[in-house]
């Protein structure tokens, strides 16, 4: 969003469940505010704002029960899925909370975990080329909207404060809502005192924004899903990797969002690297699980994803009708990779300021260099 860039990656492991909740899988959220995002962040200990950001994302998704935890159970009391969401703030252009929350929920929506079958207490985990990976069951899409207050009574506020607005604002309100007009989370901690009427007005605005954003997210994911199906058809056995690139951007001044969508599909065979998944007491599983490096290459141009494309699919660019939007601008760029043993979903929330940037064509250059595993 704007200059704020966030990367969210979802991975899954099979672990023992918590003793007090034997039938539920659980989520781990990890937020990294790396120093490359902003000079304020240091390596090592997260700052209080970093901790607050992490807790906010966790609360928004966990406490509002956005994703069904019971569906993650494999064998009650013994094996459940542990879904780990890693959120990396790459660039702080203001309003990291909103950006990170969109990235996290988009990544969770996009994620596909391996299909399993349970016979007694034997669990078979199928790699993606044998059986299609299964999506998580997401009940609703919570989206955060932040408001920055100025002036002494908080009458003036802005939606989605940018970095400069953030440094001078006197108070911040974060409202997480979903498309069903429900308030998932609201947080106003300190800052200028604001009358309740303004807060209620903000929450109504947030509900509208959340509806727009969740529609955008679901649309992007559906398109990506369509592409993934196409990729499945062109698969040629062995290890596979498909990389999708979806970009949507809304130009602020013209209030005309453009949905640019380009995808590049690729297949590549990788050597066996061992599996990261813990399989406790699993009788019959495919032992040799090649694990694939995750990293999308970050070339010099803004977040283009590069991937080899031996198959004949070509990047497509689709523009949809512009719709009216407020002064808020957003771009969603999703990079998704599916792997044999470790399906991961990578969602990068990104935005381009101004309409000229949005019209820059994204070049997907095929490369055959082996990719380094992402940290």
């Amino acid at each position: 969003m704007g200059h704020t860039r966030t990367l969210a990656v979802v991975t899954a492991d099979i672990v023992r469940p918590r003793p007090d909740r034997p039938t539920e899988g659980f989520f781990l959220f990890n937020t990294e505010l790396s120093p490359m995002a902003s000079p304020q962040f240091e390596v090592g200990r997260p700052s209080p704002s970093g901790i607050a950001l992490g807790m906010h994302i966790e609360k928004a998704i966990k406490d509002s029960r956005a994703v069904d935890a019971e569906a993650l159970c494999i064998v009650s009391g013994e094996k459940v899925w542990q879904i780990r969401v890693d959120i990396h703030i790459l660039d702080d252009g203001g309003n990291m909370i909103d950006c990170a929350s969109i990235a996290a929920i988009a990544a969770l929506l996009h994620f596909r975990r391996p299909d399993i079958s349970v016979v007694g207490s034997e669990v078979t985990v199928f790699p993606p080329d044998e059986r299609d990976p299964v999506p998580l069951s997401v009940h609703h899409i919570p989206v955060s909207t932040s408001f920055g207050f100025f002036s002494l009574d908080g009458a003036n506020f802005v939606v989605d404060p940018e970095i400069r607005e953030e440094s001078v604002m006197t108070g911040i309100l974060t409202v997480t809502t979903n498309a069903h007009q429900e308030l998932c989370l609201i947080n106003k901690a300190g800052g200028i005192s604001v009358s309740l009427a303004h807060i209620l007005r903000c929450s109504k605005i947030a509900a509208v924004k959340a509806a727009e954003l969740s529609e955008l997210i679901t649309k992007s994911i559906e398109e990506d899903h369509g592409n993934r199906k196409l990729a499945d058809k062109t698969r040629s056995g062995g290890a596979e990797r498909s990389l999708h690139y979806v970009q949507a951007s809304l130009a602020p001044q013209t209030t005309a969002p453009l949905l640019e969508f380009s995808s590049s599909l690729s297949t590549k065979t990788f050597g066996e690297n061992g599996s990261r998944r813990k399989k406790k007491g699993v009788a019959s599983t495919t032992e040799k699980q090649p694990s694939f490096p995750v990293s999308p290459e970050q070339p010099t141009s803004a977040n283009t994803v590069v991937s080899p494309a031996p198959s004949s699919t070509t990047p497509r660019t689709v523009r949809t009708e512009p719709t009216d939007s407020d002064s808020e601008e957003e771009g969603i760029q999703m990079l998704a990779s599916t792997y044999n043993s470790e399906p991961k979903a990578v969602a990068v929330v990104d935005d381009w300021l101004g309409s000229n940037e949005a019209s820059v064509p994204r070049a997907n250059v095929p490369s055959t260099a082996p990719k380094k595993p992402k940290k």
Partner: protein
Amino acid sequence: FVCSNMSRVEYLTPEGYRLDGRKATELRRIKSRLGVFSRADGSAYIEQGNTKVIVAVYGPREAAIRSKSKHDHAVINVEFTQAPFATGDRKKKGKSDRRTIEDSLLIKQTFESVVLTSLYPRSQIDLYIQILQSDGSVLAASINAATLALIDAGIPMRDMLCACTAGVLNGTPVLDINYIEQNAGGPELPVAVLPHSGGVVLLEMNSRVPLDLFERLSKLACDGAKAVYNLLQSE
């Protein structure tokens, strides 16, 4: 927002009485005392029903860690702890407990906007909050106690910050929830307001509620906070 595994406990009877005999919008009795510690610059003890909180204020004093001090206003440090005997089961909550850190940060940010910190550059004000008995609405009680302690210490503030928690029982918004009602699984909305202007300084909710219910809840919580102010004023 009703949990499916909730036993049929009647949190709110058809006549409108809760488990402890209160009506839906009735606050618990508040008892407070200022100046309970001799050594601290300011201290206060508050009892909201069965919730007992004690707060000690030290400051403004020279910043212990120079790097953390600000050149033009004071820094407020909050240490929010809950005694192991505060709840029914004894549990020792460590300092790096996620909830504790969250609450400390929340209170710190709340008071940083209310206390006139620009009058005390390069110094720090320490708030030590200890929960002696937790029976719901702990955050609200802590904020009320901290306000009283800051008044006792003579630290200037914009207004007296008063807080109250609202919840939902059987679909009805209620005020000042206690421990049992808190564990019923409904939404919990602590709100801190400045009574004279009516402005909200702290508003936090972690559960999923429809927008119109939230509107009613927040209005109720704000009225509750103002009522707390009246009660504290009269003490």
